[in-house]
């Protein structure tokens, strides 16, 4: 009776180890995973973490930057998303993960300028060490992760694109992020929890 029990225990430990090893190698979250919190500097100098924002039901975490044409094409749409969903409990959390030595115009000072010029209503955080982007598994800008609060945890509810037409907002057919949020807000499952889109590769530090 004892042996199978130990065997099962060992098996589950190995499975867990295997899963985490796989994830580290694969780099990043899948839908359904628990996301970890972070502490990053906003353009106003303030350190922001997700757990501090007790009133939020979740977050529209978006890896973006100052320089990528695709990211720029989505700035106005990100502003609209924040204006529509922050009041409903899902603010936009914009994060710039690009390395300043590889992409000088993605510096903190340029982020401050961009945020001011575009009058961003959301926080714009600097992932200087690129650790948050790596942990999340972000590969491109823009790259969205919708997180939903579940007790003390943050669950990944959606990963992917904002909509299906980066070039022309008037020709958008599918608003993936809005559809996900509308379902989450009414307690329903997200119909399309993972999508892909062309974007600029994140500018990783050369030695990493």
């Amino acid at each position, binding site marked *: 009776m004892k042996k199978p029990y130990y065997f099962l225990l060992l098996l589950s430990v190995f499975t867990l180890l295997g899963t985490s090893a796989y994830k580290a190698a694969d780099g990043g979250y899948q839908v359904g995973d628990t996301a970890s919190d972070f502490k990053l500097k906003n353009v106003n100098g303030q350190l922001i973490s997700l757990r501090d924002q007790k009133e939020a039901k979740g977050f529209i975490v978006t890896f973006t930057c100052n320089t990528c044409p695709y990211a720029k094409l989505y700035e106005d749409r990100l502003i609209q998303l924040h204006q529509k969903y922050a009041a409903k409990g899902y603010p936009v959390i914009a994060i710039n993960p690009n390395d300043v030595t590889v992409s000088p115009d993605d510096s903190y000072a340029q982020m401050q300028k961009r945020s001011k010029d575009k009058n961003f209503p959301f926080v714009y955080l600097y992932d200087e060490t690129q650790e948050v982007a790596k942990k999340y598994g972000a590969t491109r800008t823009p790259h969205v992760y919708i997180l939903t609060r579940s007790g003390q945890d943050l669950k990944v509810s959606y990963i992917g694109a904002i909509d*299906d037409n980066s070039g022309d907002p008037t*020709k958008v057919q599918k608003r993936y992020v809005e559809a996900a949020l509308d379902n989450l807000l009414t307690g329903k499952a997200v119909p399309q929890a993972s999508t892909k*889109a062309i974007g600029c*590769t994140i500018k990783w530090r050369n030695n990493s």
Partner: protein
Amino acid sequence: MKNSAFMSLRRILCLCFVMVGFLLTGSAVAQTQKVPMVKLPHLQKYLNSTSDTTYIINFWATWCKPCIEELPNFEALQKQYAGQPVQVVLVSMDFAKDLEKKVVPFVTRHKLQSRVFLLDEPDQNAWIDLVDPSWSGAIPATLFVNNARKQRLFVEKPITLAQLQDYMTSKFSKTP
């Protein structure tokens, strides 16, 4: 008064000649490579080709800095494998509206010799997985494929010429 008007007319005429001259040379150079705008089935012809050819399908855009930095590597590889069943295909992710404004001038200026086309499929989620399920959508990205030999490699990051040559000899050798 009349004389100065005549002079300025002459100046305008001169300017016109110069401009026409520029346009003519410009169009003569532009004919070196046409860049067709295509839909998904055109790309799928390469993805699903059963001929014994190794296709190196690189996804790039004129606005993507790491992409345009690695383009010379693909050009060099195509030159190196001239006359062999190896075909570099450069798939531009630029928007359709930028074909004449940005892509054609870029291809002309850099005298690209590899095959280039612009894929006009804005709903990217519908086809990214068809290229490779592991592709997140970041560019540059490159698929090496030879279906006849069941050889395949997908790389979602910039590639150096040395790496390209290494992939070609280690993964796409003619005697597997």
